């Protein structure tokens, strides 16, 4: 997989913005989805009550996860599904490999699963001689381009149709310059049909897992999860521990919220319930922790486990829209990624909670009411305390705190600052000042309000 190296969000986003026309198109495409979401939300009676209910159901799940997981496991077994527990990505990958190896399977088809992206499953299996094809069209495009998904719902939203046409020309032999989305989709469809028909194993993720019945629900628009699962003799489901809902009736809340929040559709085209293996088929389900129980232990951050991976926070986030998902150098991108990633590797992802203006739009589109922007603020405090910020920043913050804690020092600094802006602007207006690169500094008034007040109003009161 192509690596972004050690570059941080600010640098990666800056690279994306360089192509202004593409950046504007990307921003507009996501904003259009945000508007579709708004239209659906406004047409749904009791939208805010639904969000509240979804949040409450998920809080219940998080607080009683242990009980629900055991109930789910017992029902899975009753239904004839083999259950595995994986503490981390490695264990998960080993389990998938062992299932496939036992059956001598060397090729697998996989529908969209951010969890397996997180675990780098494809690379792991390929190193061991097992080929994996992603069957979600967006993920398939990302796979042939050797690039991770930039968005959890719209994996290649950062690519224009011409770029996809060029990829198809190289990898699928389409004619050069072909960029008509319908024509390209037909080519991919034909190619994937063959994949579905020949693969003996299919892996899916899970959107929801019902503790009460032991079934799980996979939502897709392309029907690709179904095609894979129905044609394969071995069906594997990889799911994070947090995907549980207690009862089947709770799906009525979540299925109404998911697609409306994600893409502005009333519901996904396919909401498929998987429960029992058909005769001659095997079903395996892997429950994956991979940092989730650690997150459960972090009081300020645990409610991010409510996430149903709709991507609404990405579509609304202006930082995401301008800078694209790949700038987040993490599988889960955007605002939700920025609060999940530090739990996995704080040092590597120390920049992400700062890649936000804390505008709060994310928290207010979130269908399960995760306080995303509050958590961004809180992660900043944790990251600073753990020492993952540059020394230069820590020093300047200390100097600022010192100045602002003393009225005399502050007034002197303000006076100096205004004087510099008036008489020595070159000291500030230069390339070392990132403000000045594309923006002018404010003017330096001769007199602060405080000075004016002391001269005028202050006297009046004496």
């Amino acid at each position, binding site marked *: 997989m192509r690596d972004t190296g050690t570059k941080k969000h600010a640098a990666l986003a800056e690279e994306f913005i360089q192509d202004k026309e593409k950046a504007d198109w990307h921003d507009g495409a996501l904003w259009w989805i945000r508007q579709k979401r708004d239209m659906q939300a406004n047409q749904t009676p009791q939208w805010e009550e639904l969000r509240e209910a979804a949040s409450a159901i998920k809080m219940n799940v998080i607080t009683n996860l242990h009980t629900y997981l055991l109930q789910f496991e017992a029902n899975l077994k009753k239904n004839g599904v083999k259950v595995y527990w994986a503490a981390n990505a490695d264990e998960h990958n080993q389990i998938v490999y062992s299932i496939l190896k036992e059956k001598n399977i060397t090729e697998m088809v996989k529908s969209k699963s951010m969890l397996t992206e997180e675990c780098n499953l494809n690379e792991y299996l390929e190193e061991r001689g097992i080929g994996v094809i992603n069957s979600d069209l967006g993920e398939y495009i990302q796979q042939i381009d050797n690039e991770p998904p930039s968005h959890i719902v719209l994996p290649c939203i950062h690519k224009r149709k011409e770029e996809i046409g060029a990829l198809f020309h190289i990898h699928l032999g389409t004619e050069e310059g072909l960029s008509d989305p319908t024509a390209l989709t037909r080519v991919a469809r034909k190619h994937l049909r063959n994949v579905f028909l020949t693969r003996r194993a299919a892996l899916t993720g899970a959107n929801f897992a019902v503790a009460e019945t032991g079934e799980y629900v996979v939502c897709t628009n392309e029907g690709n999860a179904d095609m894979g699962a129905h044609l394969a003799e071995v069906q594997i489901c990889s799911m994070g521990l947090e995907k549980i809902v207690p009862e089947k009736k709770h799906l009525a809340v979540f299925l109404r919220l998911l697609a409306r929040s994600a893409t502005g559709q009333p519901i996904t085209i396919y909401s498929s319930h998987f429960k029992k293996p058909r005769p001659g088929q095997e079903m395996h389900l892997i429950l994956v922790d991979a940092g989730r129980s650690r997150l459960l232990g972090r009081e300020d951050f645990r409610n991010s486990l409510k996430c149903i991976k709709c991507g609404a926070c990405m579509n609304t986030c202006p*930082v995401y829209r301008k800078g694209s998902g790949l700038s987040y150098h993490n599988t889960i991108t955007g605002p939700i990624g920025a609060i999940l990633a530090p739990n996995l590797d704080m040092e590597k992802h120390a920049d992400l909670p700062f890649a936000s203006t804390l505008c709060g739009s994310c928290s207010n589109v979130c269908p399960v009411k995760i306080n995303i922007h509050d958590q961004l603020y809180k992660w900043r405090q944790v990251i600073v305390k753990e020492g993952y910020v540059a020394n230069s920043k820590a020093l300047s913050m200390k100097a600022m705190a010192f100045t602002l804690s003393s009225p005399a020092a502050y007034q002197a600094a303000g006076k100096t600052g205004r004087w510099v802006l008036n008489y020595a602007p070159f000291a500030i207006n230069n390339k070392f000042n990132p403000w000045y690169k594309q923006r002018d500094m404010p003017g330096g008034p001769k007199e602060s309000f405080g000075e004016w007040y002391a001269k005028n109003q202050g006297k009046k009161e004496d």
Partner: protein
Amino acid sequence: MTVGLFIPCYVNQFYPNAAKATLQLLQKLGVDVVYPAKQTCCGQPMANSGFEHLSQGCNDLFVENFAEFDYIVGPSASCVLHIKDHLHSDHAPEEAMIIREKVYELVEFLTDVLKVDKLDARFPHKVGMHQSCHGLRGLHLAKMSELVGPPFSKPEQLLNMVDGLELVTLDRRDDCCGFGGTFCVAEEAVSVKMGKDRVIDHTKNGAEYITSPDLSCLMHLEGILHRDQSKVKIIHIAEILNASL
């Protein structure tokens, strides 16, 4: 009723006219206003950067300066929100909590406390209203576009009382401008792109002025407008509401 006038550090230094307009407007409306001279900053620049633990000096100063007033009013939604959400003090914990309850951003003080229903103001210009995110989603000065519910806007309620003023309709009425405190330098490219896109929305819809209850957003937008040698100007909402006939 005595109001303590909270003029945030950067407004005091860079935008004294907005502060004067706030003071004069409140006085015009018959409010007894006092400006405590030893105030500095709400502490947000440190706190939003992850250094909340360094903001104790600012917190203590804020409590010292403002504890005595019936209300505290400031012309900056972002700074007011920071006080409301984060002010705390080990020396005077109770006073800090009381201050959180009695601090108001200027617009909400006018609409909710003074219940202003008419203004003697005239501003014959086309004005674009920039909703500061902290004012909108933090202080709920207007209905944000994300939520489903009846529309309202406290800043627009006041602007509609101004003679001659025409509000322009924006394509994206509450998208963030990209200032974001230290974000504006740490994420310079994204910050400027966000700001430029906001400016385009206002200018293409015919705004002569961009106004807001938050000068930090306006300072950022002004920097972009000025660099582009645009004729469009920024103006704090207090200056419009205080504009005389």
